[in-house]
């Protein structure tokens, strides 16, 4: 692989910051490190950049061990959370900085800076100082400064955190466009799960310094490996079940209230085991699915409906104090009419839409 992290670990005093993280990234990939603050995502980024040393493990970039290389020899483009533009330099000088350090000729500097500014759509701002630019424009300068040196990897450390929602979404599209235009391997750090899912080829989900799962956005959302991943990515119903029977491809298990549920079998599960099962709210419906899709059904009472425009979340009380969240799309609402509080209702979800989760100690 192009970039390999092997068994990286790091402790600060007695706090584990990074706990045996291994992952690899292919050339040209757009990978997101996703996790809450303190999950270690930025620390790993700083290790790749060379600002932080790992206590053990190694990093290999393009076949070369870079552990001993100082940051200035690694040829990586970094966009910092606060952009870190040089305040005393113009846009032109900021973007040209890396080229100047590489002793590129004045003419070539000018040409490449112009190209980079065009890529980030900021031509015409060459003479401005950073404090004369808006947040979004500074962001673009920081990006131009990082890509102009043609880095081996582009590292983006929560670059959209300081922007308002609309600008954020605009920059997300811009970043993808630039990634596709340049084909540069990109690592994007964020705590925003929606951002991670929309932008990435693959997402690495971190928590407490551990890598929980790495996979495509669809894969990590629909088939999360751990309860943390399931809960962190979107809304999740995490059901605690007791296994009563194991068949070839199906497991029959009981909710605390006694309702019997079927779950597709994964791994080794035996009768009497306690298992945790994920069902996404959007798979739970008030209405039986069309055709003969095998379904689980549970009797519930509607506790609350919260309307979101494109649909509504229904908070439901099932038997044995089990709480479920169902997402009812606007189309379903229109077809079947609104549910009201206190209503007794049967909910359905396809058996294939439930996933058994492993738990991490």
């Amino acid at each position: 692989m192009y970039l390999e992290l092997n068994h990286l670990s790091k402790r600060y005093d007695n706090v584990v910051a990074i706990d045996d993280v291994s992952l690899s990234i292919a050339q040209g990939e757009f990978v997101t490190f996703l996790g809450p603050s303190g999950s270690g995502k930025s620390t790993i980024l700083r290790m790749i950049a060379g600002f932080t040393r790992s206590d053990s493990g190694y990093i290999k970039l393009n076949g070369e061990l870079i552990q001993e290389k100082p940051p200035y020899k690694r040829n990586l483009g970094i966009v910092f959370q606060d952009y870190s533009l040089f305040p005393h330099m113009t846009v032109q000088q900021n973007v040209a900085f890396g080229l100047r350090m590489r002793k590129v000729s004045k003419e070539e500097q000018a040409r490449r800076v112009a190209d980079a500014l065009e890529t980030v759509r900021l031509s015409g701002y060459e003479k401005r100082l950073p404090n004369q630019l808006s947040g979004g424009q500074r962001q673009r300068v920081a990006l131009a400064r990082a890509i102009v040196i043609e880095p081996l990897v582009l590292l983006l450390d929560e670059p959209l955190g300081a922007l308002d929602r609309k600008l954020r979404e605009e920059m997300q599209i811009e970043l993808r466009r630039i990634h596709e235009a340049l084909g540069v391997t990109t690592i994007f750090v964020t705590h925003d799960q929606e951002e991670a899912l929309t932008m990435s080829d693959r997402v690495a989900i971190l928590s407490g310094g551990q890598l929980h799962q790495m996979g495509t956005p669809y894969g990590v959302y629909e088939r999360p490996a751990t309860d943390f991943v399931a809960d962190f990515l979107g809304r999740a119903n995490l059901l605690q079940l007791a296994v009563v029977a194991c068949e070839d491809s199906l497991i029959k298990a009981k909710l605390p209230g006694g309702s019997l549920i079927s779950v597709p079998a994964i791994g080794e599960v035996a009768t009497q085991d306690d298992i945790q099962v994920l069902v996404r709210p959007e798979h739970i419906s008030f209405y039986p699915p069309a055709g003969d899709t095998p379904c689980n059904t549970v009797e519930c009472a509607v506790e609350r409906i919260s309307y979101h425009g494109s649909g509504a979340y229904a908070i439901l009380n099932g038997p044995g104090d089990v709480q479920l969240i169902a997402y009812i799309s606007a189309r379903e609402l229109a077809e079947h009419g609104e549910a009201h509080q206190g209503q007794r209702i049967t909910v359905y979800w396809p058996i294939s839409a439930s996933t058994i989760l492993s738990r991490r100690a």
Partner: protein
Amino acid sequence: MKKVGPGMLIVSAIALLFLVAPIFVAIPLAFSNARTLIFPPPGWSLMWFEAFFKRPDFVKGLRISLVSATASTILVTLIAGITAYGVVHMHGTKKRLVSLLLNVPLLIPVLVIGIAMLFFLARLRLSGTLPGLILGQVMLCLPLVFLIILAALENYNPNLEDAAASLGAPPLLVFREAVLPQVTTGLAAGAALAFITSMADTTMSLFLRGPGATPLPAAMIAYMRARIDPMIGSSAVIFLCISIVFLIIINRLIGFEAVMGVREE
């Protein structure tokens, strides 16, 4: 800018008057032709400047003041600058503790520090020497200058060092391109304060003076014990000129607004 009410204007005017008025008494006195302190002066002359430069103890004192103030300014700016640079890279309790410890000398009267320095320098066999005087002035200025430089570095962004390094700048270039431009203003402000404080210091000088190490303020105090005449005024004007020249040099180097903490928005 906020609108200033008439009350605020009057208070500011009075405050300014109190601050500046003594200067406007001292300056005319320096050009007096009277033998005693009479205000306003009965006539004008430069005789007191002539008298000043005819006194070997004053001329020597002025030279010692300039030499010791220059030396202590360089030392203090370096030490305080490096310390403040370290402190801005610290976090939490460590940062507060170090800042606090460096400010403690401000709570102790200069008189006490002077006595302590006297004993300390005697041990080093430096009492009454120029190096001793310089050390004393370094001691006097350090906490003040540290405070000023630290305040000027409040907006220091350590990430710029990482940014420069990631763009291919080796450590020396990181220092020149990312650190120096951020700290020069603070250093210059610190240097200005150090120079003026060292030049004007009287208390410390009285303890640490000696043959070959009596700065002008100490020489003037000795002179004024015997008599008081317009010579005080002329010395004051000479002091004022030196400070102004120093500030002009700093202004030429990095800009006056930066030193005085005034920034154009």
